[in-house]
């Protein structure tokens, strides 16, 4: 379970910016949730706080009872292994093949070579890319690249799947395919959090929708649709 309790986040700098204000949100295990909102609503800050990249100025972010802000830097890697993350720009390693990109995630967690050789092809077949194992990202379409990123995100069996604008660079058909895959992973028990601007997808999938505005929750609806804040 993920809990944001009265979280405030202020970025100090040349210009002081308050990204989150008394933000409260609870995400239960196995949920599928869309987080929507305009630019500057605080969505990216939410992801950074969850991943331990930033610390809350006040309040607490709890993941399975662990206060993320209190984790020491040496504890963060292990904590982050609970999450799989995909990004709008895929962030694949261009000089690695599809297989190597996915295997990279396994290597990072010191998986055995035997396990890696078994698990990577299996996950690539789940995302429909078993035939493209030896291809490089530049040889793939946007949809295929996002599916590689998705395979990399889930290959270590994370508890939470965090998707930051996963369909932002994809056409409707590929967007739908990626969303369906996310839904499949959610059905198998993974908690899925999708941060998006994609109104069509939000409306089509009818999941829980949290709308953010100015660092606060504007609305929180079960089986909701896209709300223009």
């Amino acid at each position, binding site marked *: 379970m993920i809990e944001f309790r009265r979280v405030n986040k202020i970025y100090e700098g040349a210009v002081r910016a308050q990204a989150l204000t008394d933000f409260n949100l609870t995400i239960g295990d196995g949920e599928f949730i869309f987080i929507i909102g305009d630019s500057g609503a605080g969505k990216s800050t939410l992801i950074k706080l969850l991943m331990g990249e930033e610390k809350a100025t006040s309040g607490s972010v709890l993941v399975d009872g662990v206060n993320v802000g209190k984790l020491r830097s040496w504890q963060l890697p292990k904590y982050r292994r609970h999450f799989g993350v995909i990004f709008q720009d895929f*962030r694949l390693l261009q000089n690695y093949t599809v297989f190597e990109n996915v295997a990279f995630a396994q290597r990072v967690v010191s998986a055995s070579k035997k396990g890696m050789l078994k698990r990577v092809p299996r996950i690539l077949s789940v995302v429909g890319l078993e035939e493209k194992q030896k291809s490089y990202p530049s040889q793939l379409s946007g949809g295929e690249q996002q599916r590689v990123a998705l395979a990399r995100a889930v290959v270590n069996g994370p508890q939470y799947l965090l998707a930051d604008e996963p369909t932002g660079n994809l056409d409707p058909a590929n967007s739908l395919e990626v969303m369906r895959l996310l839904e499949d992973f959610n059905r198998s028990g993974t908690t899925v959090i999708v941060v998006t601007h994609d109104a069509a997808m939000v409306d089509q999938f009818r999941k829980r929708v949290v709308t953010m505005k100015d660092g606060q929750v504007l609305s929180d609806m079960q089986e909701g649709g896209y709300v223009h804040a």
Partner: protein
Amino acid sequence: MRNFFYLIGQGIRNIFKHIGPSLFSLMIMIFTIFLFDAASVIMLNINAFVQDAEENVGVTIFFNEGMTEEEIKAVGEEIGKYDDIQRMKFTSAEEAWENYKKIYFAGNEHLADGYSENNPLANSASYEVFLKDISNQMDFVEYAKSIKGVRLVNYSNVVAEGLSNVAAVLRTGTIAILVVLLVVAVSLISNSIALTISMRSQEIHIMRYIGASNGFIRGPLIVEGLFIGVVGAAIPLIITWFGYPAVVDRIREQYTNLVNIFGFISREEVFRFIGPVSVALGVGIGLAGSFFSIKKHLKA
């Protein structure tokens, strides 16, 4: 441990990915270590020569004319009270004359027979004194001159002082240049690794999000610095290994007179010192470069 070889491979791969800055760092490393090696070779040889001189260059003390054997022995005991003496050797007037004959009447010993009743070196009994530390020679000479019954103190301070001075100047100069080069080498390696961090920023970001440990992210960067450091030490050592005997031979050919007084130390003896110290320097500089860069450019 499972990723040990992978991390080493990644570190070496990084070097070839930005070969220009890596090569520049490597060149400076080679230059720094080579300078250290060359200066060490010269100083080791000078030290060996000074040590040899200390053991073999003595101070010779002669006595007033007409002194009895007892009086001379008493003076000898007085000399022996000086702290810094390594050994001393007494040469009687007769021994002195015998030695003289061996050198100057060699083959014509009968010519010396005319002196058999009247030793021309009757007043040449002497003590030859070898000191533990030749740089204290002048203090001892003053001490010996102050002893009653001492007529003459022969010594040579040109070689000892000259060599000690050359070694001191060389040591100071080399240390000053080395300190500057060390700072330059560390900062260049650090810069080369900063480039890796910047080139791999996306990869590092992904690694973090996947849950890579700090060791997994930093490992290749440390290997990179270490590799430049070790190769930067190995190349000057190889040059010195082959170059030192060649230079010694060349000097021996060109300056035959020098060879009679200056014995060069062996290559093995040179390497017993510069081998481990150069490698330690290379490793130290490489690691320092890595750590500075990681600390400055890589946040957890």
